[in-house]
């Protein structure tokens, strides 16, 4: 089974091949289910990237949707607002348009990564719960700024995004995120992330630069979230600031909690299952959020490591016992 673990190159290739296959047969699939599938793939990328920060590095970010917003709005400015000024871009068609979209998505990811760096630098010196509030505040700041910017559509949102998100881009983003995050924490360098989570002081004392680990995890996570945001926007073809509010961040946090913090495979499965499951529960309306809340509470009391969580939680539990003694 080793060759299908989340960090092997074979998995990456199989995943990309599947993405290509899905692209080829997508014309024959039911559009409704195809779109839910694409949303699931985007959620996989989001959950996996947040898991890098919350699960592997042991920080607690509540602002993931903020990074998504940065990515979505940056990419949308390149594909939707910029062509109005530059006819050369407006004339792009077919493959070159797809390339332009990929480029915009990467720029969106880059912008989100830059934000991740700017937020990360000061706030990652803070302890867990402060960090949660700062990242939450960051998400709110982003939202308020977009809301008061006329160029970006303000609170009305930005509509008319070209429908450029294809099955191939979505699934490959998901597969590549899994591959990157899976490999990162298995590398000698990435072990620093795990060490930072398990015992920050001990990690410092053996020479791990914990601040750098945290900031890097943040930047990589933000980069992927930014790209996912771009795909999300171009899938729905409409974005507005309230889509990227606190609740979206919570939604991603729930995926990570249910899947198991520190298990890339677990959170990917949780992302897919929850996206389809919630779609089935659509007629429950506002009770959906109540169910979300109960899931969080019950999981935290009964099984804090999630369905497929790793030993990290166990270890930190013994640590807290030691402190209490």
């Amino acid at each position, binding site marked *: 089974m080793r060759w299908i673990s989340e960090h092997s190159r074979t998995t990456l290739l199989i995943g990309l091949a599947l993405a290509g296959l899905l692209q080829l047969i997508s014309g024959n699939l039911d559009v409704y289910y195809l779109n839910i599938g694409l949303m699931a793939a985007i959620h996989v990328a989001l959950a996996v990237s947040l898991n890098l920060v919350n699960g592997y590095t042991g920080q607690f970010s509540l602002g993931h949707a903020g990074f998504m917003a940065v990515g979505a709005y940056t990419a949308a400015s390149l594909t939707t607002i910029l062509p109005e000024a530059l006819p050369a871009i407006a004339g792009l068609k077919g493959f070159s348009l797809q390339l332009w979209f990929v480029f915009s998505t990467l720029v969106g990811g880059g912008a989100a990564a830059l934000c991740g760096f700017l937020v990360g630098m000061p706030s990652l010196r803070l302890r867990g719960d402060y960090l949660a509030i700062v990242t939450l505040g960051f998400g709110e700041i982003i939202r308020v700024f977009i809301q008061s910017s006329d160029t970006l559509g303000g609170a009305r949102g930005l509509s008319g995004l070209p429908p450029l998100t294809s099955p191939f881009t979505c699934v490959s983003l998901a597969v590549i995120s899994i591959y990157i995050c899976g490999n990162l924490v298995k590398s000698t360098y990435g072990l620093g992330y795990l060490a930072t989570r398990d015992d920050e002081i001990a990690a410092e004392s053996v020479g791990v630069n914990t601040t750098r680990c945290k900031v890097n995890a943040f930047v990589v996570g933000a980069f992927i979230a930014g790209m996912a945001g771009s795909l999300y926007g171009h899938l729905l073809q409409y974005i507005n600031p309230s889509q990227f509010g606190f609740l979206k961040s919570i939604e991603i946090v729930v995926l990570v909690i249910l899947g198991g913090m520190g298990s890339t495979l677990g959170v990917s499965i949780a992302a897919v299952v929850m996206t389809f499951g919630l779609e089935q529960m659509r007629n429950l309306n506002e009770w959906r959020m*109540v169910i979300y*809340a109960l899931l969080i509470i019950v999981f935290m009391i009964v099984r804090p490591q999630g369905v497929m969580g790793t030993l990290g939680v166990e270890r930190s539990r013994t640590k807290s016992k030691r402190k209490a003694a």
Partner: protein
Amino acid sequence: MDTFLQQLFNGLFLGAIYALIALGYTMVYGILRFINFAHGEVYMVGAYVAYFAASMLLPLFGAGWLAFLLLLIIAMLACALLGVGIEWTVYRPLRHRPRLTVLITAIGVSLFLQYGGQSWLGAAPRAFPTLLPKSTVSLGPVQATNLQIVVLVTTLVLMLALRFFVMKTKLGKAMRAVSHNVQAASLMGINNDRVISVTFAVGSALAAAAGVLYAINYPTINPLMGLMPGLKAFVAAVLGGIGNIPGAAVGGLVLGIVETFAGGSPLLSPYRDAIAFGLLVLLLLFKPGGLLGKATVEKV
């Protein structure tokens, strides 16, 4: 100068509400070292309890001071029970778990109250009945409404009562001891569980008072009204130095004043909601202990 004083007064009034909520955050943090995310929702529940109690009591007593005081007390008692209930059912089983687990659970409780409230009571805002007839009072150059003065006076009374409770009573002394060192306190025969329950009760009652005071001034309430004030009150608690009771009061007032001045300037007013968080980042960069907090050294 007159506008300055007027804005300062408005800021004090907003700050008083933040301060009342912030006190609950800071007390719980001081003892259990975790952010009770659900605290903002207790504030919302306080306003709703007063709303429902008003619909029962107003026909009996009529609007006026008596009704206001009764509703205030009912809301505070109900929320004290709610706070203790939350602590009992949800936080107590998690007492010795990592702080992050408790934090996530607290977010869960907060979402549960918000959306449970929304599903149960409906998302539409409700009009809060008039308890005290509104009138304008001139205090020198400052124009105030009598309701704003009621808010300031009630806040002051509650803060003094809290000060008395924490500094002069036996239970308050126990509370200070537990926040200083949990193990040592229990070795001295203090019942930690009881102290923690009392802390939740007092903090939640203060939040409920803030909810009622808000409701008599801005007469609509809705199930999500606790989210933003809750977060900002937390910022206020950190601003004053978390765990420090006078700090929470100062932090709340400072935040209220800063926000009101920012709201009054045309340049900053669109970013009003972002200011609290910007302030938090700056503070954590330069003085992470808060305005009145002490710098702590982490022991290995």
